[in-house]
């Protein structure tokens, strides 16, 4: 069968058998999504490139242990996000001496939500646009910048309980918008 038509699962199975052609196909299929998320979160092409390589090498090494619970792409993007958050947190620890001011938080904030115009992303963009700005900001800081709720509360000078409620409500609204489910 042509590799381009192989399923992700079969490619992962072949990678577990150390078939580098399967890795090549898997990379070609998903590199753009992984790199884009890494670049959005880290804001630096060199670091995003290194992180993309790390993620695919990790997949190559652990392909045999992959337990499917959703799509392979979702799994890849979770790996990417977790690794990017690790890096961002390491960065923050390095310059932990000064607490971020709200203005600095907002400088880091917008890029993640500058959504592409591709049709399949329109639904997410529309759903995000319906969120009140304070909910959207809190969710972005938590999801794309990996800030803890306490850090967001400090950053936005807002009580911790309010931040938690905003993030929860934002996710509930998005779920409702994107999946048509009741928020309750």
């Amino acid at each position, binding site marked *: 069968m042509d590799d381009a038509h192989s399923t992700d699962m079969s490619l992962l199975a072949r990678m577990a058998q*150390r078939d*580098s052609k399967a*890795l*090549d196909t898997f*990379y*070609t299929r998903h*590199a*753009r*999504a992984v*790199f*884009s998320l890494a670049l*959005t979160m880290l*804001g630096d092409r060199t670091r*995003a*490139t290194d992180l*993309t*390589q790390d993620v*695919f*090498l990790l997949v*190559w*090494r652990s392909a045999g242990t992959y337990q499917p619970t*959703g799509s392979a*792409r*979702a799994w890849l*993007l*979770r790996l*990417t*996000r977790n690794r990017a*958050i690790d890096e961002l947190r390491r960065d923050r620890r390095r310059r932990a001496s000064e607490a971020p001011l709200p203005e600095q938080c907002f*400088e*880091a*904030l*917008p*890029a*993640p*939500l*500058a*959504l*592409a*115009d591709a049709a399949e*992303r329109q*639904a*997410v*963009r529309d759903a995000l*646009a319906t969120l009140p*700005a304070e909910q*959207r900001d809190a969710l972005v800081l938590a*999801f794309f910048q990996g800030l*803890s*709720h306490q850090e967001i509360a400090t950053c936005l000078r807002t009580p911790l309980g309010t931040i*938690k409620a905003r*993030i*929860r409500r934002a*996710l*509930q609204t*998005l*779920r409702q918008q*994107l*999946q048509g*489910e009741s928020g309750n």
Partner: protein
Amino acid sequence: MAALFSCDHCEELLADYLLHALEPEAIKTVTEHLSTCARCRARLASYEAVLDQLAHAVPQQDPPAELGSRLLTAAVEGTLLTASAPEPFRLPRRPTWRPRWAFLLTAANVVLCLGVGWWTWHVQREAALVHQRWRDVQRHLALQHQALTLITAPEARPVVLRSDKAESQARGVLLLKPEESNAVLIVQDLPLLQRDRTYQLWLGWGDRQRDNGGVFRVDEQGFGLLRITAPRPFTAYQRVGITEEPAGGSPGPTSPRVIGAPLPAS
């Protein structure tokens, strides 16, 4: 605690759980509850799906072209190293002496390899630069062609964008056909930005709603061109504005307007 832990309480913590924002004790409690409650597991999966969609909704950009081959090399080399680690394969021992010319040959080989490697890298880099310049020129020509088409179209309207500050020379013109969603923006005398900053065009409608009109940069002369494909026809918008944003753009303006203008009602 787990016994008193209700599904409502669990749902309250699911967002925090997924965003890794819970204390270890709470993580343990939620994990235990999830292991016994199918309903909460389904809720967790639905939140997870939302976060997956968010992760996939960022602007898409291609990784560097050489990354694929770099990855394959690293993967294959890693495999070879790993495979040989438990019981390294050894060639039969060879005599330890080697003729003097062998060292000279090895040295010459290394020099030759380095030279060829540098030359190949240099040629590839030059080719990539030429290709990039060619693409930039093509893009610029296409934009200019579209601008000229709009300028000469009888139904096209120019909208002049100006700064609110009297001392600023920054200005622009938006060429659009009101019934359509395509337009071209030409700006002049905008300040040159740092590499991590960009200009972003906003298309305003309603009370405070805006659509992203696209991002662009300007050259040393402050000149820039942007092709716009708006989400709606221009009849739907009442105003346009340009702000300075982080590279990649923002979901909403985060800095004061650089230039802008109201759009004439059709």
